[in-house]
Protein backbone atom coordinates (compact mmCIF):
# COMPACT_ATOMS: atom_id res chain seq x y z
CA UNK A 1 0.00 0.00 0.00
CA UNK A 2 1.16 3.51 -0.74
CA UNK A 3 2.13 5.62 2.24
CA UNK A 4 0.30 8.76 3.20
CA UNK A 5 3.18 10.81 1.88
CA UNK A 6 3.03 9.11 -1.52
CA UNK A 7 -0.69 9.74 -1.79
CA UNK A 8 -0.22 13.38 -0.83
CA UNK A 9 2.36 13.79 -3.57
CA UNK A 10 -0.05 12.20 -6.06
CA UNK A 11 -2.83 14.61 -5.20
CA UNK A 12 -0.54 17.62 -5.49
CA UNK A 13 0.62 16.36 -8.88
CA UNK A 14 -2.98 15.83 -9.97
CA UNK A 15 -4.04 19.37 -9.03
CA UNK A 16 -0.96 20.95 -10.59
CA UNK A 17 -2.61 20.63 -14.00
CA UNK A 18 -5.39 23.08 -13.13
CA UNK A 19 -4.48 26.61 -13.84
CA UNK A 20 -7.69 28.28 -12.93
CA UNK A 21 -10.12 27.99 -10.07
CA UNK A 22 -12.88 26.71 -12.37
CA UNK A 23 -10.99 23.59 -13.33
CA UNK A 24 -10.07 22.98 -9.75
CA UNK A 25 -13.61 23.27 -8.49
CA UNK A 26 -14.90 21.21 -11.41
CA UNK A 27 -12.54 18.47 -10.30
CA UNK A 28 -13.58 18.87 -6.67
CA UNK A 29 -17.21 18.62 -7.68
CA UNK A 30 -16.43 15.50 -9.74
CA UNK A 31 -14.74 13.97 -6.71
CA UNK A 32 -17.77 14.85 -4.66
CA UNK A 33 -20.05 13.09 -7.10
CA UNK A 34 -17.87 9.97 -7.09
CA UNK A 35 -17.76 9.67 -3.30
CA UNK A 36 -19.95 6.69 -2.40
CA UNK A 37 -22.97 7.72 -0.37
CA UNK A 38 -22.96 6.69 3.25
CA UNK A 39 -25.60 4.06 3.88
CA UNK A 40 -28.67 5.44 5.61
CA UNK A 41 -28.01 3.25 8.64
CA UNK A 42 -24.73 5.11 9.23
CA UNK A 43 -26.18 8.57 8.65
CA UNK A 44 -27.09 8.81 12.28
CA UNK A 45 -26.71 11.51 14.88
CA UNK A 46 -23.68 9.86 16.47
CA UNK A 47 -21.76 10.04 13.20
CA UNK A 48 -22.86 13.57 12.43
CA UNK A 49 -20.60 16.58 12.61
CA UNK A 50 -22.46 19.83 12.70
CA UNK A 51 -21.30 22.62 10.49
CA UNK A 52 -23.55 25.65 10.44
CA UNK A 53 -24.32 25.28 6.77
CA UNK A 54 -23.18 21.92 5.55
CA UNK A 55 -23.80 18.69 7.43
CA UNK A 56 -21.03 16.11 7.54
CA UNK A 57 -21.13 12.45 8.60
CA UNK A 58 -18.10 10.35 9.38
CA UNK A 59 -17.82 6.69 10.28
CA UNK A 60 -14.70 4.57 10.78
CA UNK A 61 -13.83 0.92 11.41
CA UNK A 62 -10.55 -0.91 11.90
CA UNK A 63 -9.88 -3.51 9.20
CA UNK A 64 -6.64 -5.52 8.96
CA UNK A 65 -4.70 -2.92 10.92
CA UNK A 66 -5.87 -0.03 8.73
CA UNK A 67 -8.73 2.40 9.30
CA UNK A 68 -11.61 2.28 6.88
CA UNK A 69 -13.33 5.68 6.69
CA UNK A 70 -16.78 6.29 5.26
CA UNK A 71 -18.17 9.78 5.08
CA UNK A 72 -20.81 11.93 3.48
CA UNK A 73 -22.07 15.51 3.34
CA UNK A 74 -25.10 17.30 2.02
CA UNK A 75 -23.23 19.86 -0.08
CA UNK A 76 -21.32 18.61 -3.10
CA UNK A 77 -18.21 20.75 -2.68
CA UNK A 78 -18.00 19.55 0.89
CA UNK A 79 -18.28 15.97 -0.41
CA UNK A 80 -15.45 16.68 -2.84
CA UNK A 81 -13.34 18.02 0.00
CA UNK A 82 -14.14 14.91 2.03
CA UNK A 83 -13.12 12.66 -0.83
CA UNK A 84 -9.85 14.56 -1.00
CA UNK A 85 -9.26 14.51 2.74
CA UNK A 86 -9.91 10.78 3.00
CA UNK A 87 -7.67 9.75 0.10
CA UNK A 88 -4.36 9.89 1.98
CA UNK A 89 -5.69 8.33 5.19
CA UNK A 90 -7.94 5.63 3.78
CA UNK A 91 -6.78 2.21 5.01
CA UNK A 92 -3.72 3.63 6.76
CA UNK A 93 -2.57 2.39 10.17
CA UNK A 94 -3.93 4.32 13.15
CA UNK A 95 -0.57 5.75 14.15
CA UNK A 96 -0.08 7.32 10.73
CA UNK A 97 -3.62 8.74 10.75
CA UNK A 98 -3.25 10.15 14.25
CA UNK A 99 -0.16 12.09 13.23
CA UNK A 100 -1.32 13.28 9.81
CA UNK A 101 -1.25 17.06 9.21
CA UNK A 102 -3.26 17.37 5.95
CA UNK A 103 -0.52 19.68 4.68
CA UNK A 104 -1.27 18.94 1.02
CA UNK A 105 -4.24 21.31 1.03
CA UNK A 106 -1.92 24.25 1.17
CA UNK A 107 -0.27 23.83 -2.27
CA UNK A 108 -3.76 23.03 -3.61
CA UNK A 109 -5.02 26.43 -2.46
CA UNK A 110 -7.82 24.78 -0.51
CA UNK A 111 -6.68 25.45 3.06
CA UNK A 112 -9.42 28.04 3.48
CA UNK A 113 -11.98 25.23 3.50
CA UNK A 114 -10.40 23.97 6.71
CA UNK A 115 -10.21 27.34 8.45
CA UNK A 116 -11.50 27.12 12.03
CA UNK A 117 -14.01 29.79 11.17
CA UNK A 118 -15.51 28.05 8.12
CA UNK A 119 -19.08 27.02 8.49
CA UNK A 120 -18.78 23.69 6.69
CA UNK A 121 -17.85 21.20 9.38
CA UNK A 122 -14.67 20.10 7.60
CA UNK A 123 -12.26 21.14 10.32
CA UNK A 124 -14.28 19.19 12.84
CA UNK A 125 -14.13 16.24 10.46
CA UNK A 126 -10.36 16.46 10.22
CA UNK A 127 -10.11 16.51 14.00
CA UNK A 128 -12.44 13.54 14.13
CA UNK A 129 -10.30 11.62 11.60
CA UNK A 130 -7.23 12.10 13.77
CA UNK A 131 -9.17 11.19 16.86
CA UNK A 132 -10.14 7.88 15.26
CA UNK A 133 -6.42 7.33 14.65
CA UNK A 134 -5.67 7.92 18.32
CA UNK A 135 -8.60 5.82 19.50
CA UNK A 136 -7.77 2.79 17.34
CA UNK A 137 -4.11 3.05 18.34
CA UNK A 138 -5.13 2.86 21.98
CA UNK A 139 -7.37 -0.11 21.27
CA UNK A 140 -4.55 -2.04 19.71
CA UNK A 141 -1.77 -0.96 22.05
Amino acid at each position, binding site marked *: METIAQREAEIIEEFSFFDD*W*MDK*YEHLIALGKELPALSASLKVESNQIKGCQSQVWLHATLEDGGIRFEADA*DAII*TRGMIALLLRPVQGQPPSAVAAFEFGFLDPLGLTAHLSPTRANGLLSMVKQIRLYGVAFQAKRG
Partner: protein
Amino acid sequence: MNLSDIRAHFPILRREVHGRPLVYLDNAATTQKPQAVMDALVDYYGGYNSNVHRGVHQLSQEATDAFEKVRLQLQAHVNAAHSHEIIFTKGTTDSLNLVAHGFRSMLSKGDEILVTQLEHHSNLVPWQMLAQHSGATLKYVSMDGQGALNMEDFHAQLTAKTKILAFNHISNALGTINPVKAMAAAAHALGAVVVVDGAQALPHSAIDVQDLDVDFYAGSAHKMYGPTGIGLLYGKTSWLEKLPPYQGGGEMIAEVAMEKSSYAGLPHKFEAGTPNIAGVIGWGAAIQWMHSVGMDQIEAHEHELLQYGTALLEAIPGVKIYGKAPKKAAVLSFNVAGLHPYDVGTLLDQMGIAVRTGQHCTQPIMDEFGIPGTIRASLAAYTSKEDLDALARALEKAIALLS
Protein backbone atom coordinates in the same frame (compact mmCIF):
# COMPACT_ATOMS: atom_id res chain seq x y z
CA MET B 1 -26.40 62.06 -5.86
CA ASN B 2 -26.09 59.68 -8.74
CA LEU B 3 -25.04 56.10 -8.30
CA SER B 4 -21.42 56.53 -9.27
CA ASP B 5 -21.10 59.44 -6.82
CA ILE B 6 -22.64 57.25 -4.15
CA ARG B 7 -20.32 54.35 -4.91
CA ALA B 8 -17.30 56.64 -4.83
CA HIS B 9 -17.91 57.17 -1.10
CA PHE B 10 -17.23 53.49 -0.37
CA PRO B 11 -13.54 52.62 -0.64
CA ILE B 12 -14.21 48.91 -0.18
CA LEU B 13 -16.16 48.77 -3.44
CA ARG B 14 -12.89 49.27 -5.27
CA ARG B 15 -11.29 46.11 -3.95
CA GLU B 16 -10.98 42.73 -5.63
CA VAL B 17 -11.85 39.30 -4.32
CA HIS B 18 -10.19 36.23 -5.81
CA GLY B 19 -8.93 38.47 -8.58
CA ARG B 20 -12.41 39.73 -9.50
CA PRO B 21 -13.99 43.05 -8.61
CA LEU B 22 -15.99 42.73 -5.40
CA VAL B 23 -19.76 42.54 -5.90
CA TYR B 24 -21.12 43.01 -2.40
CA LEU B 25 -24.64 41.67 -2.02
CA ASP B 26 -24.67 40.83 1.69
CA ASN B 27 -26.10 44.12 2.88
CA ALA B 28 -28.79 42.64 5.10
CA ALA B 29 -25.98 41.13 7.20
CA THR B 30 -24.09 44.40 7.33
CA THR B 31 -23.67 47.34 4.99
CA GLN B 32 -20.39 48.87 3.89
CA LYS B 33 -19.30 52.23 5.34
CA PRO B 34 -18.84 55.50 3.51
CA GLN B 35 -15.55 57.38 3.90
CA ALA B 36 -17.37 59.94 6.07
CA VAL B 37 -17.88 57.34 8.78
CA MET B 38 -14.20 56.37 8.83
CA ASP B 39 -13.27 60.04 8.88
CA ALA B 40 -15.56 60.68 11.83
CA LEU B 41 -13.94 57.83 13.76
CA VAL B 42 -10.42 59.04 13.03
CA ASP B 43 -11.40 62.64 13.82
CA TYR B 44 -12.75 61.49 17.14
CA TYR B 45 -9.93 59.19 18.17
CA GLY B 46 -7.27 61.49 16.82
CA GLY B 47 -8.83 64.75 17.94
CA TYR B 48 -11.17 64.67 20.92
CA ASN B 49 -11.36 61.17 22.34
CA SER B 50 -12.56 61.28 25.92
CA ASN B 51 -15.06 59.68 28.19
CA VAL B 52 -18.44 61.42 28.08
CA HIS B 53 -20.60 63.07 30.73
CA ARG B 54 -19.34 64.34 34.07
CA GLY B 55 -16.00 65.52 32.72
CA VAL B 56 -15.16 69.17 33.32
CA HIS B 57 -12.36 69.27 30.78
CA GLN B 58 -12.58 70.41 27.20
CA LEU B 59 -12.11 67.02 25.50
CA SER B 60 -14.84 65.51 27.59
CA GLN B 61 -17.07 68.43 26.73
CA GLU B 62 -16.40 68.06 23.01
CA ALA B 63 -16.94 64.30 23.09
CA THR B 64 -20.13 64.66 25.11
CA ASP B 65 -21.50 67.33 22.78
CA ALA B 66 -20.75 65.22 19.69
CA PHE B 67 -22.22 62.16 21.36
CA GLU B 68 -25.43 63.88 22.44
CA LYS B 69 -25.80 65.54 19.05
CA VAL B 70 -26.23 62.11 17.52
CA ARG B 71 -29.04 61.37 19.95
CA LEU B 72 -30.80 64.44 18.57
CA GLN B 73 -30.02 63.34 15.02
CA LEU B 74 -31.58 59.94 15.71
CA GLN B 75 -34.54 61.55 17.39
CA ALA B 76 -35.15 63.53 14.21
CA HIS B 77 -34.37 60.54 12.00
CA VAL B 78 -37.10 58.37 13.50
CA ASN B 79 -39.24 61.33 14.57
CA ALA B 80 -39.31 60.51 18.27
CA ALA B 81 -41.14 62.99 20.50
CA HIS B 82 -38.19 63.39 22.90
CA SER B 83 -34.46 62.86 22.70
CA HIS B 84 -34.51 60.85 25.93
CA GLU B 85 -36.60 58.28 24.06
CA ILE B 86 -33.48 57.30 22.12
CA ILE B 87 -31.48 54.76 24.13
CA PHE B 88 -28.08 53.72 22.84
CA THR B 89 -27.52 49.97 22.94
CA LYS B 90 -25.04 47.50 21.46
CA GLY B 91 -27.42 46.74 18.60
CA THR B 92 -30.84 45.38 17.75
CA THR B 93 -30.28 42.17 19.71
CA ASP B 94 -29.28 44.13 22.81
CA SER B 95 -32.28 46.45 22.41
CA LEU B 96 -34.76 43.60 22.13
CA ASN B 97 -33.24 41.82 25.12
CA LEU B 98 -33.46 45.01 27.15
CA VAL B 99 -37.20 45.23 26.49
CA ALA B 100 -37.94 41.52 26.87
CA HIS B 101 -35.99 41.43 30.10
CA GLY B 102 -37.78 44.44 31.48
CA PHE B 103 -41.12 42.69 31.18
CA ARG B 104 -40.06 39.72 33.34
CA SER B 105 -41.64 41.26 36.38
CA MET B 106 -44.71 42.46 34.50
CA LEU B 107 -45.99 39.23 32.94
CA SER B 108 -47.37 36.12 34.52
CA LYS B 109 -49.06 32.85 33.72
CA GLY B 110 -52.09 33.34 31.49
CA ASP B 111 -50.51 36.27 29.68
CA GLU B 112 -49.52 35.84 26.07
CA ILE B 113 -46.66 37.12 23.96
CA LEU B 114 -47.36 37.19 20.23
CA VAL B 115 -44.52 37.02 17.73
CA THR B 116 -44.48 35.90 14.11
CA GLN B 117 -42.98 33.06 12.16
CA LEU B 118 -40.93 35.64 10.24
CA GLU B 119 -38.74 36.67 13.15
CA HIS B 120 -34.99 36.80 13.25
CA HIS B 121 -33.71 34.72 16.17
CA SER B 122 -32.90 38.01 17.92
CA ASN B 123 -36.60 38.81 18.07
CA LEU B 124 -37.61 35.31 19.00
CA VAL B 125 -35.20 33.88 21.57
CA PRO B 126 -35.55 36.85 24.00
CA TRP B 127 -39.32 36.30 24.03
CA GLN B 128 -38.86 32.57 24.54
CA MET B 129 -36.67 33.42 27.52
CA LEU B 130 -39.28 35.89 28.79
CA ALA B 131 -42.02 33.27 28.43
CA GLN B 132 -39.92 30.75 30.29
CA HIS B 133 -39.22 33.15 33.16
CA SER B 134 -42.64 34.67 33.53
CA GLY B 135 -44.84 31.69 32.78
CA ALA B 136 -46.47 33.55 29.91
CA THR B 137 -47.31 31.69 26.71
CA LEU B 138 -45.52 32.42 23.45
CA LYS B 139 -47.74 32.32 20.37
CA TYR B 140 -46.97 33.09 16.80
CA VAL B 141 -48.58 34.39 13.66
CA SER B 142 -48.03 32.14 10.66
CA MET B 143 -46.97 33.27 7.21
CA ASP B 144 -48.38 32.35 3.85
CA GLY B 145 -46.54 30.72 0.95
CA GLN B 146 -45.43 34.13 -0.33
CA GLY B 147 -43.79 34.96 2.97
CA ALA B 148 -46.42 37.52 3.98
CA LEU B 149 -47.96 37.35 7.42
CA ASN B 150 -51.29 35.61 7.52
CA MET B 151 -53.45 38.52 8.67
CA GLU B 152 -56.42 36.36 9.48
CA ASP B 153 -54.24 34.36 11.77
CA PHE B 154 -52.87 37.58 13.27
CA HIS B 155 -56.32 38.78 14.21
CA ALA B 156 -57.25 35.36 15.54
CA GLN B 157 -54.15 35.12 17.75
CA LEU B 158 -54.30 38.69 19.02
CA THR B 159 -56.59 38.70 22.04
CA ALA B 160 -57.08 40.51 25.31
CA LYS B 161 -54.58 38.03 26.75
CA THR B 162 -51.87 39.35 24.45
CA LYS B 163 -49.62 41.54 26.56
CA ILE B 164 -46.83 41.98 24.04
CA LEU B 165 -46.80 41.95 20.25
CA ALA B 166 -43.28 41.71 18.82
CA PHE B 167 -42.49 41.52 15.12
CA ASN B 168 -40.13 42.81 12.53
CA HIS B 169 -40.82 45.71 10.24
CA ILE B 170 -38.99 44.00 7.38
CA SER B 171 -37.95 40.35 7.28
CA ASN B 172 -34.23 39.88 6.76
CA ALA B 173 -34.72 36.47 5.17
CA LEU B 174 -37.55 37.25 2.75
CA GLY B 175 -37.81 41.01 2.50
CA THR B 176 -41.47 41.04 3.53
CA ILE B 177 -42.60 44.49 4.69
CA ASN B 178 -45.11 44.08 7.48
CA PRO B 179 -48.07 46.47 8.00
CA VAL B 180 -46.68 47.94 11.20
CA LYS B 181 -49.18 50.74 11.64
CA ALA B 182 -52.24 48.53 11.26
CA MET B 183 -50.80 45.80 13.46
CA ALA B 184 -49.82 48.28 16.14
CA ALA B 185 -53.28 49.82 16.12
CA ALA B 186 -54.94 46.43 16.45
CA ALA B 187 -52.64 45.49 19.32
CA HIS B 188 -53.15 48.79 21.12
CA ALA B 189 -56.91 48.40 20.82
CA LEU B 190 -56.51 45.27 22.92
CA GLY B 191 -54.05 46.82 25.33
CA ALA B 192 -50.86 45.10 24.14
CA VAL B 193 -47.40 46.67 24.01
CA VAL B 194 -45.96 46.86 20.50
CA VAL B 195 -42.27 46.06 20.02
CA VAL B 196 -40.89 46.37 16.49
CA ASP B 197 -37.58 44.99 15.25
CA GLY B 198 -36.61 47.65 12.75
CA ALA B 199 -33.12 46.31 11.94
CA GLN B 200 -33.95 45.84 8.27
CA ALA B 201 -36.28 48.78 7.85
CA LEU B 202 -34.02 51.57 9.10
CA PRO B 203 -31.49 51.18 6.26
CA HIS B 204 -34.10 51.29 3.54
CA SER B 205 -36.72 53.91 4.28
CA ALA B 206 -37.69 56.85 6.45
CA ILE B 207 -39.18 55.75 9.77
CA ASP B 208 -41.69 57.75 11.79
CA VAL B 209 -42.25 56.06 15.14
CA GLN B 210 -44.99 58.48 16.09
CA ASP B 211 -46.90 57.89 12.89
CA LEU B 212 -46.45 54.11 13.19
CA ASP B 213 -47.44 54.52 16.84
CA VAL B 214 -45.25 51.72 18.17
CA ASP B 215 -44.06 51.50 21.77
CA PHE B 216 -40.55 50.25 21.05
CA TYR B 217 -38.46 50.23 17.90
CA ALA B 218 -35.02 48.62 17.65
CA GLY B 219 -32.16 48.99 15.16
CA SER B 220 -28.43 48.52 14.49
CA ALA B 221 -26.02 51.12 13.12
CA HIS B 222 -23.95 48.54 11.24
CA LYS B 223 -26.89 47.73 8.97
CA MET B 224 -27.37 51.41 8.09
CA TYR B 225 -23.87 52.39 6.90
CA GLY B 226 -22.65 52.99 10.45
CA PRO B 227 -20.14 51.32 12.79
CA THR B 228 -20.44 47.96 14.49
CA GLY B 229 -21.27 47.66 18.17
CA ILE B 230 -23.90 50.36 18.42
CA GLY B 231 -27.66 50.37 18.06
CA LEU B 232 -30.75 52.05 19.27
CA LEU B 233 -33.83 51.38 21.23
CA TYR B 234 -36.60 53.87 20.74
CA GLY B 235 -39.17 53.69 23.51
CA LYS B 236 -42.18 55.81 24.37
CA THR B 237 -41.46 57.81 27.52
CA SER B 238 -44.27 56.21 29.46
CA TRP B 239 -42.97 52.71 28.75
CA LEU B 240 -39.34 53.59 29.35
CA GLU B 241 -40.37 54.95 32.71
CA LYS B 242 -42.26 51.79 33.57
CA LEU B 243 -39.46 49.47 32.49
CA PRO B 244 -36.94 48.65 35.22
CA PRO B 245 -33.25 49.30 34.50
CA TYR B 246 -31.52 46.48 32.64
CA GLN B 247 -27.89 46.81 33.65
CA GLY B 248 -26.39 48.41 36.75
CA GLY B 249 -23.28 50.53 36.74
CA GLY B 250 -21.78 53.93 36.20
CA GLU B 251 -23.90 56.66 34.59
CA MET B 252 -27.25 55.00 35.29
CA ILE B 253 -27.58 55.88 38.92
CA ALA B 254 -28.55 59.01 40.85
CA GLU B 255 -27.41 58.05 44.34
CA VAL B 256 -25.39 55.03 45.38
CA ALA B 257 -25.02 53.75 48.87
CA MET B 258 -23.58 50.36 49.71
CA GLU B 259 -27.04 48.94 50.33
CA LYS B 260 -29.18 50.43 47.63
CA SER B 261 -29.13 52.87 44.76
CA SER B 262 -31.63 55.14 43.14
CA TYR B 263 -31.70 55.30 39.38
CA ALA B 264 -31.04 58.20 37.07
CA GLY B 265 -33.59 59.63 34.67
CA LEU B 266 -34.01 58.79 30.97
CA PRO B 267 -32.05 57.99 28.88
CA HIS B 268 -29.26 57.33 31.40
CA LYS B 269 -31.22 54.77 33.36
CA PHE B 270 -30.68 52.37 30.45
CA GLU B 271 -27.13 53.35 29.57
CA ALA B 272 -24.92 51.84 32.23
CA GLY B 273 -21.18 52.02 31.71
CA THR B 274 -19.04 53.84 29.19
CA PRO B 275 -21.00 53.88 25.93
CA ASN B 276 -19.60 53.13 22.48
CA ILE B 277 -18.70 56.79 22.00
CA ALA B 278 -16.86 56.39 18.71
CA GLY B 279 -19.64 54.13 17.47
CA VAL B 280 -22.26 56.77 18.21
CA ILE B 281 -20.23 59.53 16.56
CA GLY B 282 -19.58 57.37 13.50
CA TRP B 283 -23.27 56.59 13.34
CA GLY B 284 -24.01 60.30 13.25
CA ALA B 285 -21.84 60.56 10.14
CA ALA B 286 -23.68 57.61 8.58
CA ILE B 287 -27.08 59.16 9.17
CA GLN B 288 -25.88 62.42 7.74
CA TRP B 289 -24.62 60.50 4.73
CA MET B 290 -27.98 58.78 4.26
CA HIS B 291 -29.75 62.13 4.35
CA SER B 292 -27.27 63.58 1.88
CA VAL B 293 -28.48 60.89 -0.53
CA GLY B 294 -32.06 61.12 0.64
CA MET B 295 -34.12 58.38 2.25
CA ASP B 296 -36.67 58.54 -0.54
CA GLN B 297 -34.00 58.15 -3.19
CA ILE B 298 -32.53 55.15 -1.37
CA GLU B 299 -35.92 53.50 -1.13
CA ALA B 300 -36.80 54.17 -4.78
CA HIS B 301 -33.42 52.99 -6.02
CA GLU B 302 -33.58 49.75 -4.09
CA HIS B 303 -37.13 49.13 -5.19
CA GLU B 304 -36.15 49.48 -8.82
CA LEU B 305 -33.19 47.16 -8.38
CA LEU B 306 -35.30 44.61 -6.56
CA GLN B 307 -37.61 44.37 -9.54
CA TYR B 308 -34.70 44.27 -11.94
CA GLY B 309 -32.95 41.51 -9.96
CA THR B 310 -36.14 39.50 -9.52
CA ALA B 311 -36.67 39.44 -13.29
CA LEU B 312 -33.04 38.48 -13.91
CA LEU B 313 -33.09 35.60 -11.46
CA GLU B 314 -36.46 34.29 -12.51
CA ALA B 315 -35.21 34.02 -16.07
CA ILE B 316 -32.61 31.46 -14.95
CA PRO B 317 -33.96 27.90 -15.15
CA GLY B 318 -34.24 26.15 -11.81
CA VAL B 319 -34.14 29.31 -9.71
CA LYS B 320 -36.90 29.67 -7.15
CA ILE B 321 -37.30 32.89 -5.20
CA TYR B 322 -38.52 32.62 -1.61
CA GLY B 323 -40.52 35.56 -0.33
CA LYS B 324 -42.80 37.21 -2.81
CA ALA B 325 -44.98 39.27 -0.53
CA PRO B 326 -46.81 42.11 -2.30
CA LYS B 327 -44.88 44.62 -0.17
CA LYS B 328 -41.27 43.65 -0.21
CA ALA B 329 -37.88 45.28 0.33
CA ALA B 330 -34.34 44.84 -0.94
CA VAL B 331 -33.82 41.09 -0.42
CA LEU B 332 -33.57 38.33 -3.05
CA SER B 333 -33.68 34.97 -1.29
CA PHE B 334 -33.53 32.02 -3.66
CA ASN B 335 -32.46 28.45 -4.30
CA VAL B 336 -31.55 26.49 -7.39
CA ALA B 337 -33.37 23.20 -7.89
CA GLY B 338 -31.22 20.29 -6.81
CA LEU B 339 -28.33 22.40 -5.56
CA HIS B 340 -27.20 23.05 -2.00
CA PRO B 341 -26.99 26.78 -1.17
CA TYR B 342 -23.54 26.28 0.31
CA ASP B 343 -22.20 24.99 -3.01
CA VAL B 344 -23.70 27.85 -4.97
CA GLY B 345 -22.43 30.40 -2.47
CA THR B 346 -18.93 28.96 -2.53
CA LEU B 347 -18.72 29.21 -6.31
CA LEU B 348 -20.23 32.70 -6.39
CA ASP B 349 -17.56 33.73 -3.93
CA GLN B 350 -14.88 32.45 -6.31
CA MET B 351 -16.32 34.87 -8.84
CA GLY B 352 -16.16 37.82 -6.46
CA ILE B 353 -19.84 37.81 -5.55
CA ALA B 354 -20.56 38.11 -1.85
CA VAL B 355 -23.94 36.64 -0.96
CA ARG B 356 -25.05 34.98 2.24
CA THR B 357 -26.21 31.39 2.29
CA GLY B 358 -27.90 29.46 5.05
CA GLN B 359 -30.74 30.10 7.44
CA HIS B 360 -30.12 33.80 7.98
CA CYS B 361 -30.93 33.33 11.67
CA THR B 362 -34.52 32.51 10.73
CA GLN B 363 -34.70 28.77 11.21
CA PRO B 364 -38.50 28.73 11.62
CA ILE B 365 -38.91 30.18 8.12
CA MET B 366 -36.59 27.59 6.63
CA ASP B 367 -38.35 24.81 8.51
CA GLU B 368 -41.67 26.05 7.13
CA PHE B 369 -40.35 25.95 3.56
CA GLY B 370 -38.64 22.62 4.33
CA ILE B 371 -35.28 23.79 3.05
CA PRO B 372 -31.83 23.89 4.67
CA GLY B 373 -31.40 27.54 3.73
CA THR B 374 -31.36 29.95 0.85
CA ILE B 375 -28.92 32.02 -1.12
CA ARG B 376 -29.60 35.64 -0.24
CA ALA B 377 -28.58 38.67 -2.27
CA SER B 378 -29.47 41.82 -0.35
CA LEU B 379 -29.24 45.33 -1.75
CA ALA B 380 -28.18 48.75 -0.54
CA ALA B 381 -28.01 52.33 -1.76
CA TYR B 382 -24.81 51.60 -3.67
CA THR B 383 -25.98 48.44 -5.41
CA SER B 384 -25.93 48.75 -9.20
CA LYS B 385 -27.63 46.92 -12.04
CA GLU B 386 -24.15 45.76 -13.00
CA ASP B 387 -23.88 44.07 -9.60
CA LEU B 388 -27.07 42.14 -10.31
CA ASP B 389 -25.98 41.33 -13.86
CA ALA B 390 -22.74 39.97 -12.44
CA LEU B 391 -24.72 37.90 -9.96
CA ALA B 392 -26.90 36.43 -12.69
CA ARG B 393 -23.96 35.59 -14.94
CA ALA B 394 -22.01 34.03 -12.07
CA LEU B 395 -25.05 32.09 -10.98
CA GLU B 396 -25.43 30.58 -14.44
CA LYS B 397 -21.78 29.58 -14.38
CA ALA B 398 -22.16 28.05 -10.91
CA ILE B 399 -25.20 26.10 -11.99
CA ALA B 400 -23.32 24.79 -15.01
CA LEU B 401 -20.40 23.71 -12.86
CA LEU B 402 -22.57 21.99 -10.29
CA SER B 403 -24.97 20.19 -12.62
